């Protein structure tokens, strides 16, 4: 599974993308965040205010309850501020 990070999520984690293989028990965006937090303080800092983090699966907006079934690419980022 390819993970991508943008804006301050990217800065806090320190990388813009990585490939991970979470355990089978990780079935949703929310569970993926919890699993990532277990990997180090930089992830805990990035996801500290979890409600403010937006997610996308395969480049489509999803909420934190969404399942990862067909997820080839998952992205985490703050609320968008373009325009």
């Amino acid at each position, binding site marked *: 599974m390819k993970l991508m990070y*943008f804006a301050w999520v990217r800065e806090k984690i320190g990388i813009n993308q990585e490939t991970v293989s979470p355990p089978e028990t990780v079935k949703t965006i929310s569970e993926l965040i919890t699993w990532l937090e277990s990997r180090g303080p930089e992830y805990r800092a990035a996801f500290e205010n979890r409600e403010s983090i937006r997610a996308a699966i395969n480049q489509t907006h999803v909420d934190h309850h969404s399942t990862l079934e067909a997820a080839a690419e998952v992205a985490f*980022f*703050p609320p*968008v*501020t*373009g325009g």
Partner: protein
Amino acid sequence: MTAPRINRVQSNPFNITEEITALRGERKDIGAIVTFTGTVRDTAAGEKITTMALEHYPGMTEQELEHITNEAHSRWPLQGSTIIHRIGDLSPGDDIVLVITLSAHRAAAFEAAEFLMDFLKSKAPFWKKETGESGNADWVDARDTDTEALTRWQK
């Protein structure tokens, strides 16, 4: 006649007159042309801004712009639309985003342009980072009013 849909992400500046000309082509049944241009303001929270950096999510951006555009064309009788969003380092006064809508009548052109901007602001994966005179760089916070703006388009 087809209604062209031009969506682009670029670091270069854009010229509004040229973009209108490219969009309208040879059509002569257009009655109303609305453009919206978003520009970099020189202050944020009281501090002078020196640079604004624009980051985006390549791939997802294009999908979102296409989605937003298709929705606008399905809601209003548009004769064409353009969305150009700049990325990279910009300075105060620089243009950030351009939206153009063409329609036979002004109400549709105005509404579609506002709709495109409202959805762009809340759905398209762009992020702004402002650097102030002090050297501090801060990611711009999303505004609640931008989320609220979406509610008026709910069917």
